[in-house]
């Protein structure tokens, strides 16, 4: 297992180099000039050229790439053109809201969706099953921002139970933090609840017809244990796969949700950086996200082998 994790970590190196190259090239090849944006509308050509020289944008592209990767290896992500801060500081500032939102979403989704899926599978074909699956289709098809504005309208505007925007750091107290995170978490988790519940149901349906489920019943085991002890663990591999994919896809949802609720997280930062052609920030965010993807994949593979002793690497 240890050797496997080490091998997988080594294998991420070429992946990250490729991602870095793409991130770098993609932005250089877009027809826009950050120097002009920074200089503003009234700048002269000399001023723009000066800024360009200062940022190193007048060097040939490959020189720029090597300077940039060299700095990366020393942990230097450069300085934001637009925010006038180092990128590392900027990301450190913005990472907590996103992390909190993502974690709350995933935890909520798993806690709600897995039992729902198990119940639906157990009551396969009943009205409860059909109702749950009906809701899950709805959950898939309604866009995140529509769900967000609906929740805002009901809970923030009409009922006035929860704040409509912003984020409170966990360090400033749990209460205010929780108040601010509830609506965004609900918004974002709907689609994942739908996804994970469907997968759980499908996977459980398959497993429930297996012989060892019958064996468990023949032992006199109670139904709850038959479902959760014997069936669910066997059904878990596809469910974990979907959860892993879900976390990866979460990033897109985070961008929208953070915009709806004006949360100063990485999603908002990404949008702002893209609009400002803030290359160093965009590149750092892309790299960060791809590291997260790779780590999630690794975690999923490790969880597989924990869940199923037949899977060995």
């Amino acid at each position: 297992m240890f050797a496997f994790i080490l091998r997988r970590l080594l294998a991420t190196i070429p992946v990250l180099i490729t991602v870095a190259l793409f991130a770098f090239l993609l932005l250089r090849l877009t027809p826009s000039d950050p120097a002009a944006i920074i200089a503003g509308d009234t700048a002269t050509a000399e001023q723009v050229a000066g800024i360009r020289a200062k940022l190193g944008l007048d060097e040939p592209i490959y020189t720029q790439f090597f300077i940039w990767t060299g700095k990366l290896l020393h942990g230097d992500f450069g300085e934001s053109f637009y925010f006038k801060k180092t990128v590392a500081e900027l990301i450190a500032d913005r990472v907590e809201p996103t992390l909190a939102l993502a974690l709350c979403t995933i935890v909520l989704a798993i806690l709600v969706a897995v039992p729902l899926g198990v119940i639906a599978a157990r009551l396969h074909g009943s009205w409860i099953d059909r109702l749950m699956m009906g809701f899950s289709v709805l959950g898939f098809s309604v866009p995140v921002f529509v769900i967000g504005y609906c929740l805002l309208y009901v809970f923030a505007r009409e009922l006035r139970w929860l704040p409509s925007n912003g984020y409170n750091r966990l360090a400033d107290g749990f209460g205010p933090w929780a108040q601010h995170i509830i609506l965004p978490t609900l918004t974002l988790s709907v689609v994942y609840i739908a996804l994970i519940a469907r997968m759980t149901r499908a996977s459980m349906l398959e497993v429930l017809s297996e012989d060892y489920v019958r064996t468990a019943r023949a032992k006199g085991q109670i139904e709850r244990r038959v479902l959760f002890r014997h069936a669910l663990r066997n059904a878990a591999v596809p469910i974990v796969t979907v959860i892993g994919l879900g976390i990866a896809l979460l990033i897109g949802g985070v961008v929208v949700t953070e915009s709806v609720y004006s949360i100063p997280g990485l999603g908002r930062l990404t949008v702002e950086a893209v609009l400002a052609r803030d290359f160093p920030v965009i590149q750092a965010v892309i790299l960060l996200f791809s590291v997260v993807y790779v780590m999630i994949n690794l975690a999923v593979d490790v969880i597989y082998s924990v869940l199923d002793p037949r899977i060995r690497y």
Partner: protein
Amino acid sequence: MASPVLEIRDLTVAIADSGGDRTNAIEQVSLQVMPGEIVCVVGESGSGKSVTSQAVMALLPKGQLMIASGSIKLEGDELTTKSPSEMRAVRGKRVAMVFQEPMTALNPVERCGDQIAEVLEIHTDLDAKGRRARVLEVMRSVHLPDPEQMADAYPHQLSGGQRQRVMIAMALVLDPAVLIADEPTTALDVTTQAQILKLIREMQQRRNTGVLFITHDFGVVSEIADRVVVMQKGRIVEQGSKAAILSAPREAYTKMLIGAVPSLVPPVRTAITAPVTLETVALNKTYGKRGFLQPAARVVKAVTDVSFEIRRGETLGIVGESGSGKSTVARCIARLVDPTSGRIDIDGVDIARMSERSLRPYRRRVQIVFQDPYRSLNPRRTVGQSIIEGPVNFGLPHADAIARARDLMGLVGLSPDALDRFPHQFSGGQRQRIAIARALAMEPTLLIGDEPVSALDVSVQAQVLQLLDAVRKKFDLAVLFITHDLRVAAQICDRIAVMQRGVVVETGPTAAVFSQPQHEYTRALFSAAPGQGFGNRIGAGQVADALPVAAV
């Protein structure tokens, strides 16, 4: 006289939405099991023997089958009126069950010891330490080697026989009054089967357990039964002592079932001297290779230096237990897997390493009929589409292919008008006939049967064997017949190759191999076959004249 531990009286189980031909799965079933007695319930698929056992366990599929009338008494205690939670207290404790497939009947993600301990968790107050002690004790009593280690192993780390021992340990850990064994040895190799039968006998005698033993195999019946109950289409046809049923059956159905069991004594056959169709020379297949960043090579030799030949019009049988490499040989010859080394000559041309393009004309010459006709036909295509697909791929005009398919349907004993139907509209035996027609549509010179009758009921099995033999004669085919069933091999094969761990240990004319086995393994294999003395009169279940011939 002792009173029965299990008494079933006039039991009828109804089918909920019976759109089919039967309203009841079983009707008016009455039987009893005395303490220390083994009662074998014999019947073909659909006879209701498994439904009977499920009814006793109250494990009938919910909403599909339900007890309509009758009574089931366990040690005098009525089971049919018990609530689900009362039944849970009975299951696993007073009546336990061993299933057919030890691979799938055990939870693959839980340690074997924990699965046995679960029974104790449910039904006793033992603490973890006490449970562990009991688990090790019962594992020792079913002769599992090194119980400490086995208890911590996962099912996939055990052999099939060991898994079935774990199942038996699980069933017997609380000393139930009744053990229901539902085809417990059907999925096992013949040598393992002999050991498991012995174990069931031993455990049952030591504990005086009453056993309801469900099987389709008369060899097993003759080995283990005290009394026999014969079922057909949900009803009991006949019951009595083993001696009475096996040697003097009264009912025609019982006579037919027993008569259809192939004899272990091969008929006299003349050696075939026609030209050689298939010859393999030093065929090898190894799996696994050194991977990138993977230090030690884990190479499995599936097939080692296999050489044999089959002449036109001849049937060569490969017999062996699971893992002996017999199916791998077949797949290499059909080039479904690529052999690692060696030669495969079809009509004198070596196809072992031919490219896919030059292999194409030879593909049609080698056709396979697989074991499971339920899965080897595409369920979404009509059987006609399945049959003509091959010939059309090889350039036969559509209309000609259809005409050929109609001829072949008649040949295998089915109506040509059935070409528009889908596989699920046929029975298992009919589907296997279709699979044979599909293979013949390609006009092969070599027909491979990979356990083609193993999934079929014994009466149907005899008919399909007869059909295979008839088409061999009609088209002068070379046939490679792979089977684990020595009785079948004795009846259909001209020559036999015995395989063990990828190696052919013995070859020879069938009669010679059966009467004077040379290799130690062959002798072990033959002596393990259940019911040695049973059904061995010459001609029993013989292919040539057992049943009315289909239109050949």
